[in-house]
């Protein structure tokens, strides 16, 4: 017989679901819900945030166009996640080290890679990974970056690099991989300067968040590693930025790692390569999230302040899209990666067997 007076598991379970409200500054009707936090931004700041989100949406639209034209390789759509991606990455500094996942090309570009390089990465060209940025290439094994982010953080700590952190991204699905826990646990154990960001966009390809875990929040997953964590409205760029900035300040002060869960949504498919979201969700499921759209939300505030207009945005979008068209032309102009070059970069010094293969391929390539 269960003895409730000794232990009441049901009460403990219920208590787990007793979550604090996700942090929000602008609600979905563009109403300021935290005036003091809102007032910390100048008009210029607000315009800058808007520009970044417009840039990311334009990047997405133009890249999808390229994809439909057969000019892209693997591409993971980002529409809907602009506040989460731009808000968090804008809190970072150049000296920070970024470990992105595959949906994080916009952050990688913000952190110093060029759009051309991002396109080359998508096409599977090594030049796409030779960017001038402190960053790993987008991680495909979604939990693995968490382990590595603990290591980069420990390296920063051992090097005594000032005002520098490691920051990494994964998604809701990524938190189910054991590596994400190992990474957070190591970061906690060594108190590394690492910021873990979980962009909870509702789906791991087709598997919804509620099938991923019984945990009431993904932020809670950091608790077991002794890491402070928080949920933030991932459709509110002001909240995403403010929380990421606060986390960075806290980490830089020597307090160890932090984890942020952004509550966001992927409007489109998992990837441009044949995923059909209508197989696993309805228009009705998606609609409420469009109503929370991060661009609409901030646009209203700016328009009320007389800081933004449709004409201004159209002009910007055109400007951005033209720059992406230039970028893909630049990518087109990069010579194809050669097998002989791939073989050369397997080891620092090619093995005798590889040398033979290199000669074989060089002979072939010289005839092409």
């Amino acid at each position, binding site marked *: 017989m269960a003895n409730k007076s000794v232990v009441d598991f049901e009460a403990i379970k219920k208590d787990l679901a007793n979550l604090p409200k996700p942090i929000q500054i602008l609600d979905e009707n563009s109403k300021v819900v935290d005036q003091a936090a809102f007032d910390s931004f100048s008009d210029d700041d607000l315009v800058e945030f808007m520009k970044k989100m417009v840039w990311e949406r334009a990047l997405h639209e133009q890249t999808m166009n390229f994809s439909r034209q057969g000019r892209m390789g693997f591409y993971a759509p980002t529409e809907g996640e602009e506040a989460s991606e731009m808000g968090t990455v804008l809190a970072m500094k150049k000296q920070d080290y970024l470990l992105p996942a595959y949906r994080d090309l916009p952050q990688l570009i913000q952190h110093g890679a060029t759009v051309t390089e991002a396109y080359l990465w998508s096409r599977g060209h090594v030049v796409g990974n*030779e960017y001038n940025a402190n960053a790993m290439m987008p991680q495909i*094994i979604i939990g693995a970056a968490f*382990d590595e982010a603990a290591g*980069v953080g420990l390296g920063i700590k051992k090097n005594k690099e000032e005002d520098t952190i490691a920051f990494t991204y994964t998604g809701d699905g990524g938190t189910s991989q054991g*590596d994400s826990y190992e*990474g957070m646990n*190591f970061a906690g154990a060594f108190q590394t300067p690492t910021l873990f960001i979980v962009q909870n966009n509702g789906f791991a390809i087709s598997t919804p968040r509620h099938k991923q875990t019984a945990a009431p929040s993904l932020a809670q997953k950091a608790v077991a590693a002794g890491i402070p964590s928080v949920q933030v409205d991932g459709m509110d760029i002001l909240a995403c930025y403010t929380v990421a900035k606060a986390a960075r300040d806290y980490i830089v002060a020597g307090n160890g790692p932090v984890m942020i869960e952004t509550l966001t949504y992927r409007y489109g498919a998992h990837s441009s390569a044949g995923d059909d979201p209508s197989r696993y969700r309805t228009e009705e499921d998606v609609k409420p999230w469009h109503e929370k759209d991060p661009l609409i939300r901030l646009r209203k505030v700016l328009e009320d302040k007389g800081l933004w207009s449709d004409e201004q945005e159209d002009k910007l979008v055109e400007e951005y899209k033209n720059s992406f068209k230039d970028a893909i032309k630049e990518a087109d102009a990069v010579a194809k990666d050669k097998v002989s070059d791939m073989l050369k970069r397997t080891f620092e010094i090619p093995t005798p067997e590889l040398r033979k293969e290199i000669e074989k391929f060089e002979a072939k390539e010289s005839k092409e």
Partner: protein
Amino acid sequence: MAKMTYIKAITDALDIMLEDDPKTLIFGEDVGKNGGVFRTTQGLQEKYGEDRVFDTPLAESGILGLATGLGVKGFRPIPEIQFMGFSFEAMDQIVGQEARMRFRFNGKQTSPVTIRTPYGGGTHTAEMHADNLENYFASTPGLRVVMPSNPYDAKGLLISSIENNDPVLFMENLKLYRSMKDDIPEGKYTVPLDKANVVQEGTDITIVAYGAEVNEAKKAAETLAKDGVSAEVIDLRTVSPIDTETIFKSIEKTHKVVIVQEAQKMAGVGATVASAIAEDAILSLDAPIGRVAAPNSVYPFAQAEDYWIPGADEIVEKANEILNY
């Protein structure tokens, strides 16, 4: 010169490299205060401090992910996987991440990690402690797999591995840890990677082996010598990549070969040596290629280990079969 066991030779190499390069770090389960479950890292934390030699939480993927991250931050990590069977937990970090770093970044970011791990049968350990897992890793482009067969090589190969700018899986044979002693020169010396060693010269048959099986091959050669057979024994030292040149040169002289490994027979180092000979040097032979390997079963529980692992007798038997072909 000092007489040193295999394990002391490894400790000596680690000590030298911690002293030599301030960017080297040793970490893993119980490697700090406890000095490792085999005492391989004994005294190193005391001497170099917790900043350089430290314990980690018990999670192999975490340990090697830490190594990958430290590598991109300019360190030269020497993580330990406490027993090689535990490396399955870290397969992605070794094969999916570290081995690909140079390839991914065209050399702009690399993974100069040396993963040390004990393996090998004959000491009656618990399950998942003794398996010969080199075959899983030897097929990984971008990763070296080094398996010293004696204390002298262990020290020199470990120093070479740590100094190498690519990732190395350095496999330490459990049975050899305390059963072998060599004269070990003081201070730093290297034994080259990717080069096989002709342990003893001979004219009638070539025996190719690596790890603890090199000792079995030497014993077999002694037995064969009593019957007037002159066997050449080759120690691969590095099992990926394989130094085929040394093997081809030898069989050109002996025309006969037996390839020996402690691991199961299927799809591994011995099979690769055999296929290289078949492909590029078959005309040197005047008899079929002989192979001695463990049977294709799950690695045995401790009691059956001694019968399962191939020994000198099996090598002699196979050599005679080839010699009398």
